[in-house]
């Protein structure tokens, strides 16, 4: 296998893991934050270098040079491919920005050591493709919130039950898949447990109660870091996509689509800012599954673009809400707060990231939404209406929350509540990525398209299907002649030539 120039993958997993161990011994939250910032900063640098190094290789996949685990065990555990390469720095960036934007008021509640531990687990999950290892790292990633809930003396039952069930079903499902080594199409006994496990992990209706509970009872930062990397979607790509028949994926897509609309509706009527965020995130993340499960190059490309867009925009929105909470405590959406005058920077960031999440023109989400809907409509005839409905409801909910938090009255305060430099840097960096990606989307879309094709090729190999038509052939599609109906089912759509 091709090798990166340095062991960036292992470094990006080891640095936060070692940092977590070291920081757990520190008493001072301030010192813990500083060390956590250093560790997550180095981790982020390693992931960026891994991504760039991989890009320079022009290969489909690459592993570490001087791979420690391979040397010890002879097994190549950590691998980067086109799909995971940009996800690694994106996730590392979330952790870095979360640490950077943590104010003194939040330091006592936010566990920096668990944050690093969870970062290590998350990056390890993203850097490996072996199904059992993915399941193991997914399970490890569930542990930090458990300890946090316990330390805050909250009920673990809902979260523990859901995550435990999810991991157990993944193990059962993959075990059953392993029992059918000669079959290209696996039995339902093997596929359905994996599908349900993913639905639970992703918070699809009716398995979504844990998410609201986690946001309500956990610290906002930890909950945010647990959900925004969207590990359920990652499990779909690595575990379900290669082995599941089309109709199973479409079933999951329908479930995701229902969740998107349902959660968007609920986000519109919430009375607490955290629950609003939770449902809004749930709705957005579910849309990704619609594209993932469409199993077409365009739909999958749209889903992968949306993945990055939603990860960044929802983290930006979450960081803004968290910054507000650090100043004003938990915020209700039962009345107007009128915070604009004191925090115009946060108001602008809230509006920008919120609009980016719903795919507003000029943001990264716009082209992702277009691709997603376009691709998904090819597979499900009526899906466009549902996705548009969810997008419309999400847009209404975001602006409603903005108005309730920042306008409608005057908030009296004798002290300055303006956005701090670190917070400003965090949200501006996310805003710059969202707008920059929105104005110049081609490079990003192209790499996501290659990744989508790679995933679909792998799926076809696993299922024993003929390979995808090559891209040069696909270019041949043209506009339909006048008066002719659109592309027939099963055929690639005509090229879009606006």
């Amino acid at each position, binding site marked *: 296998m091709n090798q990166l120039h340095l062991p960036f993958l292992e470094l990006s997993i080891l640095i936060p893991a070692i940092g977590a161990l070291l920081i757990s011994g520190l008493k001072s939250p301030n010192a813990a934050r500083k060390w956590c910032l250093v560790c997550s900063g180095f981790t982020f640098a390693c992931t960026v270098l891994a991504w760039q190094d991989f890009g320079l290789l022009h290969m489909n996949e690459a592993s570490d040079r001087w791979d420690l685990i391979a040397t010890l065990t002879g097994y190549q555990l950590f691998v980067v491919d086109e799909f995971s390469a940009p996800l690694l720095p994106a996730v590392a960036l979330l952790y870095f920005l979360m640490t950077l934007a943590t104010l003194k008021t939040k330091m006592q509640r936010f566990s920096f050591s668990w944050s690093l531990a969870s970062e290590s687990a998350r990056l390890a999950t993203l850097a490996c493709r072996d199904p059992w290892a993915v399941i193991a790292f997914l399970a490890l990633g569930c542990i930090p919130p458990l300890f946090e809930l316990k330390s805050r003396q909250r*009920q673990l*039952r*809902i979260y523990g*039950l859901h995550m435990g069930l999810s991991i157990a079903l993944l193990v059962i499902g993959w075990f059953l898949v392993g029992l059918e080594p000669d079959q290209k199409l696996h039995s339902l006994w093997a596929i359905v447990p994996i599908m349900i496990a993913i639905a639970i992990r992703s918070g699809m209706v009716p398995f979504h*109660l844990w998410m609201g*509970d986690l946001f309500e009872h956990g610290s906002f930062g930890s909950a945010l870091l647990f959900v925004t990397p969207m590990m359920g979607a990652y499990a779909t790509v690595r575990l379900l996509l290669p082995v599941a028949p089309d109709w199973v994926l479409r079933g999951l897509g329908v479930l995701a689509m229902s969740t998107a609309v*349902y959660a968007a*509706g*609920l986000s*519109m*009527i*919430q009375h607490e800012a955290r629950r609003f965020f939770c449902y809004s995130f749930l709705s957005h993340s579910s849309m990704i599954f619609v594209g993932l499960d469409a199993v077409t*190059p*365009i739909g999958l*490309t749209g889903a992968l673009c949306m993945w990055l867009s939603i990860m960044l925009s929802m983290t930006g929105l979450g960081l803004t809400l968290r910054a507000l909470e650090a100043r004003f405590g938990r915020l209700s*959406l*039962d*009345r107007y707060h*009128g915070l*604009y005058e004191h925090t115009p920077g946060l108001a*602008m960031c809230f509006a920008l990231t919120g*609009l980016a999440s719903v795919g*507003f*023109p*000029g943001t990264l989400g*716009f*082209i992702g939404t*277009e691709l997603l809907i*376009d691709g998904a*409509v090819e597979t499900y005839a009526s899906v466009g209406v549902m996705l*548009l409905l969810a*997008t*419309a409801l999400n*847009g*209404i909910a975001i*602006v*409603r929350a903005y*108005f*309730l938090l920042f*306008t*409608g009255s005057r908030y009296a305060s004798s002290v300055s509540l303006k956005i701090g430099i670190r917070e*400003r840097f965090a949200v*501006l960096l996310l805003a710059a990525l969202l707008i920059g990606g929105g104005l110049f*989307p*081609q490079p990003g*879309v192209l790499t996501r398209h290659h990744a989508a094709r790679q995933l679909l090729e792998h799926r076809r190999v696993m299922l024993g299907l003929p390979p995808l038509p090559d891209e040069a052939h696909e*270019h041949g*599609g043209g*506009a339909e002649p*006048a*008066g002719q109906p*659109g*592309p027939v089912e099963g055929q*690639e*759509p*005509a*090229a*879009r*030539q*606006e």
Partner: protein
Amino acid sequence: MGWLMMAMQICGVVVLVAPMLLLCVLGIPALLDRQLSERQISWAVLVANSVGLAAAVCVLAGMLLSGERSVPIELGTWVGIPNYHFAWKFVFDRLSVPFVILSFSLIGVIGAFADQYMHREPGYSRFFMLYSIFLAGMIVTSLAGTIETLFSGWELVGLSSAFLVAFFHERESPVRNGQVIWSIYRVSDAALLLAALTLHHQTGEGDFGKLMVSGTWPDGEARLTEAQAILVGGLILLAAAGKSALVPFSGWLPRAMEGPTPSSAVFYGALSVHLGAFLLLRVSPVLERSWMLGAATITLGLATALCGAVCGRVQTDIKSVLCYASLTQVGIIVAEIGIGWRYIPLIHILGHACLRILQFVRAPSLLQDYRAIENAIGGSLPSTMGWFARMLPTSSQHWLYRFALERCYLDGLLARFVVSPVLAVFHACDRYERQATAWLNGRPPTTTSPSPAPITGGAEELL
């Protein structure tokens, strides 16, 4: 004539770049929390509008000299992957050129007016930031050569409209009205995007030019079957109804008067309110494919005109009177489009926009004008009932008065039959979820969920 075409292309690009640069000049400092001075902002606005207008007039002159009826501007492929291409394409033609010149003229005039009107207002820079988004949105929408490009501008206009209505955001009422307008715009946006998708999947094209078998606007015939046209046209009609406050969405227009007078003038009196009609004109070949679409357009237009005429009679403040007068005219314009006319509604839009903007900017001094007239005639102005009202029996007069006062019950009907049932379902779901969470956590299930706040500006206040 190659050089003339190239000059027109360059001017066309300038028309597009000017508002975008204004948006950057005002937007980037706002994002970095740096305040530009009023003088800098007003200069930037003046330069952007003047340059844009001059370039648009040059394009018009070039078209008249060369006899070209359509000047396309293609900014290259924005996104291109196999089976999917997205290119920014704009077109200067007989519809877009008058509209873009009108937009630059009126927005420029209002920019100069607002510079004085908003002087030393705390939200001066915020106003002009939203103003620049609106300008960019209007220009993109007017010149859009594809339905996706049009959608991008359409969304920018919607966003700036809603936030400008909520401009005086320290009070609840403007904010609630801004939320209502945003909600209706989102429905309208969704309908337009769905129309775009449908169009793509039926024809493989979103390009207005390629949608026609031959010819440029207003000639040409749509490449759609009647059934396809009914679906696409119906969605576009819904989008236009939301944007232009046609029945049953007319209720948002008077709510929009909460914004500052300059924005009310340019948005709801002159430009934004005509965007729906503009869209119908742009896709008029689609409407022509089916007599049912034409009939629906005429019905919608006439119903809106009637609604505007009736409601306008009972309004007690000048901005509401003017907004209903606008609504009446927009209804008539839409009916004209439904009939199949093309140039008459375009001229109607241009004339109506100019007249109405003048009336709106004069509105704050209306009382002074009335006082001057009354001083001149030495008494109160006579208030007489129209002949139609005098013919009605008293009971009908009372009923009609109430009907008009309640704005034809449109808001009430939408709230009762659309919004409330939907919200009731979601509230019930939320309640059951909380109970299920409590049960799973081993807590006693709560019998009540937090009740919907009476006045929250939330979903209950959508309409």
